[in-house]
C-alpha cells in the first residue's frame, strides 16, 4: 500500500481503433467454416427448383449408393423434429407448418427437400444431383398484390385468399382529421424486396457427443441463446444439453436474427450419424433461402391544412410474407406502423396491414426492419405534400416537427419518444450543405434544363429494442463482469456483436469505470456454455441495452471492490480511481490487483461480503430509445442517360452520447451504403413463376466501394434519459435516413417535369423513361 497521485486515462468518447479488427483483417478469425473436427462429415441440401409443386415421390437410392455418401434424409425422416418457429403471437395469425424438410409440397424455390451427408463436400454435392424427385408443378404467385387478387393460386391450399395476417391500428380521430383537411395527398410507395447479403453466408457445424448426451451447435447467428432454447425444443433435447456457439460472425444485418431449418437439421443429422457434420450455405442458397428484407407495397394518404400542418396519416400496408413465417416475420410491418408518424406532431393515424403469402423465401428483419419502410413512406409523403402545397420541403418539416419542449412525447402509435430536438440536425444539415445557395443554383440550372435535386430526409427511429412486454422474447440484456485473482477483467455479454465493435466499446466503458487500461479487459460473447443467458444483437440494442447491463454490473463490482479496498486500507471513506482504491483521509491506496488477490484468497472478508469479484446484471430497459437526424442528398441527373450522380451526402445523426466516434462513423457509413443500395441498385426480383431472377451477384447490384459518394457525417447530441450511458443506438440510422433523402433528391430534380414519385431502385432506365415521357 502506498500513497500515490493517481493519473487516469479515459476512453469513452475517443476514436479508439477496434480491438477486433486485427484478427478480422489478417484473416485469422475463426468462422463456422474454419472449424475442423476429426470425423467431420459434410451436408449438402437438395432444394426445390420450383416455387410451387407437389412432391409425388423421392428416390434417394442412387444418391445413397454414390461414393462417400453416408446417408440421405428426407422429410419423412425428420417428421419427429419440431417446426421452424415463428416467435410472434397475433390474434389472426395463420401459421403454416414449417417443417425443416419439405414433406408433400414445396412452397418456394430453394425449399429444402433432402439432405445428403458424405465424407467429403464435393461428393455430397455430386450425390445431391442423383436424388430423383418427381414434382407435379403447380401454379405459383410471387407478387403480393397479385396474390391478393381473386383467382390467384393459393400458396397454402388451406387458405385460398393468401392472407397470412391482418392488423389494424387507429390513433386519435382519423376521420375527423381527414374531414377537416384542406388537402389530401395520396401515393402508392413500394419498398422492394432486398437480400441482406452478409459477407459470411450462414453455416452450421453440429457435433453430437453421445457419451455426454450433449449437442454442440456452431452457427453463424446474432442470437445464440435463443437458438439454443428454440432448436433444443425442435430436437426434443434438454436445453442444458445443448451448447450454441456463434464463432466469428461475418455480418448479419438481421438475416441471422432467426432460427433456421438448417440449424435443427444439422443437429438432427449429427445425432443420427453420431459424427460432427458441417453445412456451409452457398451464395446461391444465401440468395434463395436466407430471409429477405422489406417487401412492402404501401398506400399512403396524408391530410393537411393549407399551411402545411399535417392532420393525419392513413396507411394500407401490404407485406410480402413469402411462403412461411420465420422468427419475426409478422412483427416487421408492425414496427412500420409504430414509426408511421415519423418525427411529426400528428395524433391521428390509421393503419391496416395485410400480410400476404407468396411463393417466395420469407421476409423478416433486415437492417432497420420495418423502420426504413415507414421512414421512406412518411418522408416521401411529406415531400409529396410540400409539392402539392408548393412549400419548401425544409419549411414543411420545421412546421410539423415535435418541438423539443414536448418530450417525453406520446405518439399516436403508442410510443413514448424519450428525448429529441428535431430541428437541430436539420438546421445543421441545411447549413452544411449550403441550402439557400443550392436552391439558387438549382433555379439557374433549371433554366438550362439541367436536373439537379436537393433531397431532405428527417428521420426518427426506434432503437435499443426494447422493453420486454413489447418484444417477442424478452428485451432485456445481460452482462457479467469478473476480475481474476491477478486483477484482469473479463466481460461476458449476452449480446452477440458481429461487426458492431462492442469488444471495443464495452471495454471502453469498463476501463473508465474501473480505471484500468483497455488491454486489461477481455470481452467474450457468443457461447452459451460460457456466457449467461442473453438476447443478442439486433435492433440497435447492443450498446444501449447490453452496454447498460455492463455498466450496472460494473457498479455492483465497484461497490464490492471498494469494500475490499476499505478493508485492506482499514478505512471507511474510500474512492475507486485509476485502478486503485484510495483512502480519502490518508491518501493511502491499494491496487485492483491487491484487492483481487485478497478477495479470492479470502483470509479476511468485509462484513456481509462473499469472496471473489464477479457481478452479473440483467437490465430491463424502461423504454426504447429514439435517435433521429437529417440527411440531405444533392444529385445531378444526366438528362440523356438518366444516370444519377450524388454530388453531396450530408448526414447529421443524433444518436445520443457517442462512446466511440470511429465506430459510429463506421455504422453510419455502412448504413448509408445499404440505404443507397436500396435507393439506387438493389432488388430481389421474382418472375411470375417464382424464380429469383436476381439470384447471383452478377445480377443483384450490391453497393460497391467505387460507387460510394463521400459521406459528410456530422452529429448533434441529445442524450437519452432511458439509460445511464445516454446512448441511443446508431446501427440502423444510415439505412433509415438514406433512401428517402436520395429519392426526394431525384424527384426534386425532376419536379419541373411534374414528377411526384418514383419507386426504388432508381435505375437509370427508370429515370430515362420519366425524362423521355415528359419531353
Amino acid at each position, binding site marked *: 500500500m502506498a500513497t500515490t497521485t493517481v493519473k487516469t486515462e479515459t476512453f469513452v468518447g475517443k476514436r479508439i481503433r477496434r480491438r477486433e479488427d486485427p484478427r478480422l483483417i489478417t484473416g485469422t478469425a475463426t468462422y463456422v467454416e474454419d472449424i475442423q473436427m476429426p470425423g467431420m462429415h459434410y451436408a449438402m441440401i437438395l432444394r426445390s427448383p420450383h416455387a410451387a409443386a407437389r412432391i409425388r415421390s423421392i428416390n434417394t437410392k442412387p444418391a445413397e449408393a454414390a461414393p462417400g455418401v453416408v446417408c440421405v434424409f428426407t422429410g419423412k425422416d425428420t417428421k419427429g423434429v419440431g417446426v421452424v418457429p415463428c416467435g410472434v403471437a397475433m390474434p389472426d395469425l395463420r401459421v403454416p407448418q414449417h417443417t425443416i424438410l419439405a414433406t408433400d409440397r414445396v412452397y418456394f424455390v430453394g425449399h429444402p427437400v433432402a439432405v445428403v451427408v458424405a465424407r467429403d*463436400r*464435393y461428393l455430397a*454435392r*455430386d450425390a445431391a444431383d442423383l436424388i430423383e424427385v418427381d414434382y407435379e408443378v403447380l401454379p405459383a404467385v410471387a407478387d403480393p398484390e397479385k396474390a391478393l387478387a381473386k383467382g390467384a393460386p393459393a400458396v397454402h391450399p388451406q387458405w385460398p385468399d393468401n392472407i397470412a395476417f391482418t392488423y389494424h391500428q387507429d390513433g386519435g380521430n382519423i376521420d375527423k382529421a381527414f374531414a377537416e383537411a384542406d388537402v389530401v395527398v395520396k401515393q402508392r410507395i413500394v419498398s422492394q424486396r432486398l437480400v441482406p447479403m452478409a459477407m459470411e453466408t450462414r453455416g452450421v457445424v453440429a457435433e453430437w457427443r453421445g457419451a455426454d448426451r450433449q449437442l454442440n451447435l456452431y452457427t453463424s447467428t446474432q442470437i445464440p441463446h435463443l437458438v439454443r432454447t428454440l432448436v433444443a425444443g425442435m430436437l426434443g433435447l434438454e436445453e442444458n444439453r445443448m451448447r450454441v456457439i456463434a464463432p466469428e460472425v461475418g455480418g448479419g444485418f438481421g438475416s441471422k436474427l432467426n432460427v433456421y431449418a438448417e440449424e435443427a437439421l444439422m443437429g438432427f443429422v449429427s445425432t443420427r450419424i453420431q459424427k460432427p457434420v458441417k453445412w456451409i450455405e*452457398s*451464395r*446461391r442458397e444465401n440468395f434463395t433461402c436466407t430471409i429477405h428484407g422489406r417487401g412492402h407495397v404501401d398506400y399512403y394518404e396524408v391530410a393537411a391544412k393549407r399551411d402545411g400542418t399535417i392532420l393525419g396519416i392513413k396507411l394500407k400496408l401490404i407485406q410480402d410474407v413469402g411462403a412461411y413465417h420465420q422468427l419475426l416475420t409478422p412483427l416487421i410491418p408492425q414496427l412500420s406502423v409504430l414509426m408511421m408518424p415519423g418525427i411529426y406532431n400528428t395524433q391521428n393515424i390509421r393503419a391496416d396491414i395485410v400480410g400476404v403469402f407468396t411463393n417466395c423465401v420469407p421476409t423478416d428483419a433486415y437492417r432497420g426492419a420495418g423502420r426504413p419502410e415507414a421512414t421512406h413512406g412518411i418522408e416521401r409523403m411529406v415531400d409529396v405534400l410540400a409539392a402539392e402545397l408548393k412549400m419548401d420541403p425544409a419549411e414543411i418539416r420545421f412546421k410539423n416537427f415535435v418541438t423539443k419542449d414536448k418530450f417525453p412525447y406520446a405518439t399516436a402509435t403508442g410510443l413514448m419518444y424519450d428525448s429529441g430536438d428535431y430541428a437541430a440536425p436539420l438546421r445543421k444539415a441545411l447549413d452544411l450543405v449550403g441550402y439557400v445557395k443550392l436552391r439558387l443554383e438549382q433555379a439557374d440550372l433549371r433554366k438550362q434544363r439541367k436536373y439537379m435535386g436537393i433531397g431532405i430526409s428527417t428521420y426518427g427511429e426506434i432503437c435499443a429494442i426494447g422493453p420486454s412486454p413489447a418484444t417477442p422474447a424478452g428485451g432485456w440484456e445481460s452482462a457479467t463482469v469478473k476480475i481474476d485473482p491477478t486483477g484482469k477483467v473479463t466481460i461476458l455479454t449476452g449480446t452477440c456483436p458481429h461487426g458492431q465493435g462492442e469488444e471495443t466499446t464495452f471495454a471502453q466503458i469498463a476501463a473508465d469505470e474501473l480505471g484500468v487500461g483497455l488491454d486489461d479487459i477481455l470481452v467474450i460473447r457468443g457461447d452459451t456454455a460460457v456466457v449467461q443467458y442473453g438476447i443478442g444483437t439486433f435492433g440497435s440494442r447492443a450498446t444501449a441495452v447490453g452496454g447498460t447491463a455492463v455498466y450496472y454490473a460494473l457498479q455492483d463490482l465497484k461497490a464490492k471492490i471498494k469494500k475490499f479496498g476499505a478493508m485492506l486500507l482499514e478505512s471507511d471513506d474510500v474512492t475507486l480511481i485509476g485502478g486503485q482504491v484510495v483512502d480519502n483521509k490518508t491518501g493511502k491506496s491499494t491496487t485492483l490487483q491487491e484487492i483481487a488477490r485478497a478477495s479470492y484468497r479470502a483470509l479476511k472478508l468485509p462484513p456481509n461480503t462473499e469472496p471473489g469479484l464477479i457481478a452479473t446484471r440483467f437490465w430491463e430497459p424502461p423504454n426504447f430509445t429514439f435517435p433521429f437526424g437529417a440527411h440531405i442528398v444533392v444529385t445531378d441527373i444526366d438528362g*440523356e*442517360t438518366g*444516370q444519377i450522380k450524388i454530388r453531396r451526402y450530408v448526414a447529421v445523426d443524433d444518436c445520443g452520447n457517442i462512446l466511440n466516434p470511429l465506430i459510429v462513423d463506421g455504422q453510419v457509413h455502412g448504413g448509408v451504403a445499404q440505404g443507397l443500395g436500396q435507393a*439506387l*441498385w438493389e432488388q430481389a*426480383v421474382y418472375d411470375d413463376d417464382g424464380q429469383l*431472377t*436476381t439470384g*447471383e*451477384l*452478377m*445480377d*443483384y*447490384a*450490391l453497393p*460497391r466501394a*467505387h*460507387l460510394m459518394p463521400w459521406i459528410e457525417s456530422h452529429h448533434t447530441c441529445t442524450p437519452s434519459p432511458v439509460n445511464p450511458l445516454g446512448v441511443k443506438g446508431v446501427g440502423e440510422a444510415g439505412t433509415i435516413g438514406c433512401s428517402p433523402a436520395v429519392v426526394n433528391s431525384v424527384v426534386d430534380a425532376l419536379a419541373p417535369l411534374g414528377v411526384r414519385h418514383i419507386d426504388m431502385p432508381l*435505375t*437509370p*432506365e427508370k429515370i*430515362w*423513361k420519366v425524362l*423521355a415521357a415528359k419531353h
Partner: protein
Amino acid sequence: MFAQKFEYTAPKTLDEALHLLANGAKPLAGGMSLIPMMKLRLAAPEHLVDLRALKDLNYIREAGGQLHIGATASHYDIESSALLRQKCPLLTETAAAIGDVQVRNLGTIGGSVAHADPAADYPAALQALEAKFVLRSEKSERTLSAADLFVDALTTALQPGEILSEVIVPIDDTRTGTSYLKMAQPASGFAIVGVAARVRQNAGKISFVRIGVTGLSNRAYRATAAEKALEGKTGSAADIQSAAALVARGVDANSDLHASADYRKHLAVVHAARALKTALSRIA
C-alpha cells in the same frame, strides 16, 4: 457452389498446352467467367489447362509497326502498360473500365476475347481498332480479323483445340483520337452498352472513323453506317449527332432486367456521340 471433379494442368510450355488442348482439355486463362460457371455447374470441363502459367503468352511489345499482346496479359497489365498508354490508349482506357480491381488482376485479354461475352468491354475497342487475332493449335496457326472472330454470343471462330495466342493492334498516328465509354451494369460491371470510337482528322475533315459497339446485341460489332456518315465531315455537333443516330439502327438489341432493348439502343446513340466527341477532342 462446388464444381464437378476436373483435372488441372499448368503446363510450362505452349506446345505442351496445345498438345493437351488437342486431346480435349479446355483452356483456363484467368477464370473470371469460367470458374463461376463451373461452380454453378453450368460448365463441367473434365480437364483444365491453365494458360496463365505460360510465360511465353504474357507480353506486350511493339514489332513491325504494330502492337502485339500475348493472350495472358491481364487487364491490369494492359491498363498499366506505358507502351500501350502511349501507342494505343484506347486499349488501356478500355482495360481500366473492366469489372473491378480483382477482376483486372486475374482476368486476361485472351480469356475475355475467347469467351466472347456480348457485354465484354474489349471487343468494342478491338472492333474499332480492327485488331487481328492469332489462333494456334497443335497443328496450325492462323490470323483472323475481329469481324471474323466474333460470331455470336459466347461464340467465336475458335475451333476445338485452338487457342487465341495473340492480339495485334495498330499504332495510330497523332492525328488519331480514341475513346471508350460505357454504362456499366452495376452488379456485374459488364457494359450495358459500351462504345469505342477511333477517329482521324486531315485538314479539318474527318478522314477515318471506326466505331465498335458492345453490349447492345449478341456480339460486338462495327457501326459501319455511322462511320461512313461521319467520314468527310468536319465533326460538328450536328455531324456527330446524325452519325451516332445510326449506330443502333437495324440492330436486334438485347433486353434484360438491367436495360430494355429501347434503352440500350438509346444509350448506344448517346455513348457513340459522346465517345466520338471525346475522341475528336483528343486529337493532338
